[in-house]
């Protein structure tokens, strides 16, 4: 089977898998929700009469108010992180580039943190409305600044050196860490809880109001990134080669940096720092179907959504009825994976 057909098959399999995992995510958690309750809810949505509606009332409330928004958020954030990771690896021409490793996520988190503390100093009535817009915007600015800095420091005409890129990431991570530490120091108790949540990541805060704001934004960002697939493919050959193939490299790079920073900034602002999704997912996909971004980005989106939902299910189940921050789960899964990649690349890093 040639690679294009394999890519289509993989995409189809992932597209079937995702709804199943979404159902799993909806029925799992501290409050038991039976599959029968969920099916009954679906029926009632389609106007089919459900005779024992009363007995499902509590389960339906949990599903509609908590589990569904959480699951939808997981799909959005997982797919966005994976697409942004894939696009970033193309931009840096380096398969180890990942928003959480090269400091983009921590830059975005710092932006979000500044937003929380700044808006926290305002009168209570203003806080929640302002936070909805200010925090994602500042998270974008933080992520954008970090991406730009790592790109400028770590990339030459011959691509990016893994070592320089990782070192630049460490430096930016340290700077953001210092900023976060300062914010922790000056924050009051409420802000502190908010900040901790941002640093460890969680899908727990999902609400429909929030989703109506971010769904269109993230869908547009994902579509825009996927439309850069041809440019990304050419870019893998090298910047001059991509130019010789007719691409305006300067514009392409600016577009990619802005879009990935936006995607990561918005994701971080609603779910905190969730690491390694952008590294692990495109890598797994590339191993199966190769680096062609026309197939890599959509397949990564599907797999990223599925994996993040699974991680969230794990985070909810292992210490139930409490839950682990999801960032801990993805780091526990992702860090060993990253180490194995480093070992494989060791000779090239030098």
């Amino acid at each position, binding site marked *: 089977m040639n690679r294009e057909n394999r890519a289509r098959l993989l995409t189809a399999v992932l597209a079937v898998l995702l709804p199943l995992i979404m159902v799993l995510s909806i029925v799992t958690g501290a409050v038991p929700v039976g599959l029968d309750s969920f099916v009954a809810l679906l029926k009632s949505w389609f106007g089919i009469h459900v005779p024992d509606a009363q007995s499902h009332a509590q389960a339906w409330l949990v599903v509609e108010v908590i589990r569904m928004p959480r699951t939808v958020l997981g799909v959005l954030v997982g797919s966005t992180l994976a697409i942004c990771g894939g696009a970033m690896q193309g931009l840096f*021409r380096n398969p180890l580039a990942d928003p959480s490793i090269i400091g983009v996520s921590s830059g975005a988190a710092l932006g979000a943190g500044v937003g929380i503390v700044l808006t926290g100093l305002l009168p209570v009535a203003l806080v929640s409305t302002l936070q909805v817009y200010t925090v994602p915007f500042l998270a974008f600015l933080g992520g954008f600044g970090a991406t730009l800095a790592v790109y400028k420091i770590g990339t030459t005409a011959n691509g990016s050196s893994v070592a320089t890129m990782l070192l630049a990431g460490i430096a930016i991570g340290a700077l953001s860490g210092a900023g976060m530490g300062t914010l922790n120091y000056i924050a009051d108790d409420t802000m502190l809880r908010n900040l901790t949540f941002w640093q460890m990541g969680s899908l727990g805060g999902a609400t429909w109001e929030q989703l109506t704001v971010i769904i269109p934004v993230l869908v547009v960002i994902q579509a825009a990134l996927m439309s850069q697939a041809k440019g990304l*493919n050419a870019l893998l050959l090298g910047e001059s080669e991509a130019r*010789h193939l007719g691409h305006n490299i300067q514009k392409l790079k600016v577009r990619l940096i802005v879009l990935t920073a936006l995607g990561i900034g918005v994701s971080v602002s609603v779910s905190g720092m969730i690491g390694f999704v952008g590294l692990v997912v495109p890598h797994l996909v590339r191993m199966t179907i190769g680096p062609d971004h026309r197939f890599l980005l959509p397949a990564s989106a599907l797999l990223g959504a599925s994996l993040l939902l699974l991680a969230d299910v794990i985070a909810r189940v292992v210490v139930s009825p409490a839950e682990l921050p999801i960032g801990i789960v993805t780091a526990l899964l992702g860090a060993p994976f990253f180490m194995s990649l480093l070992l494989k690349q060791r000779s090239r890093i030098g």
Partner: protein
Amino acid sequence: MKTGNNISLDVNGVSVRRSGRLLLDNVSFTARPGEVVALLGPNGAGKSTLFKVVTDEMPADGGDVIFNGKPVNDWDLGERALMLGILPQSSSLNFPFAVGEVVLLGRSPCSTGREENAAIVHKALEKVDALHLKERNYTTLSGGEKQRVHLARVLTQIWTEPQSSSSSLGPRLLLLDEPTSALDPAHQHQTLRIAREFARHNVAVVVILHDLNLASQYSDRLVMLCNGQVRAEGTPHDVLKPALLKELLDIDVCIIPHPVNGYPLVVAA
């Protein structure tokens, strides 16, 4: 404005100055459709700088590069890609594309259909003797194999005359920067035979070479660069003279005619 064969590349008095040093000093040469022009010269002569100016990767401080009637940097990038194939010395590609996919990227500026593109990729790989590598992972190839794969990619890019509705495009130009540096002798000759073949199909070819005998055998004209200046230009017979080579390349040589074809052969004295 640009009809007939009499247009492709005109480099007019190009100078490049970097941090006080004159890298190129008033360099002029031309390449017309149907001819192979070899750029020769010692290391540091300015060949790569000239290549970068011609391919619009580096601005010139003086002079201009006219490609098919327009300054090379005035062309629309997409249009230019249909006429200008450029093979750099080496590539930084390190993602696991299949070889066939790498070559297919060369077709991305062209608006031809899938089947035609696949056929062109097949023919180009055959031409560079790399068809057997088509399904292989690019990153596992040897240096010489990679060089041939990229040659195939650049060939597919300008495989056919550009079809443009506006018909404002001109003849094709193929620029090769040391295309034989990683190749064994058989493939070195094969690469230059391909250059000749493209020239026969109305393509202008400019190739940077170090091997004087390859240049002598396959090019119509030689341009000898030294210290950023064109020091000699003409047919292999005109340029390959012992005194000149001693002066520019610091080698003692004898020039003898090739026993079969008569082109000048350079052998160490």
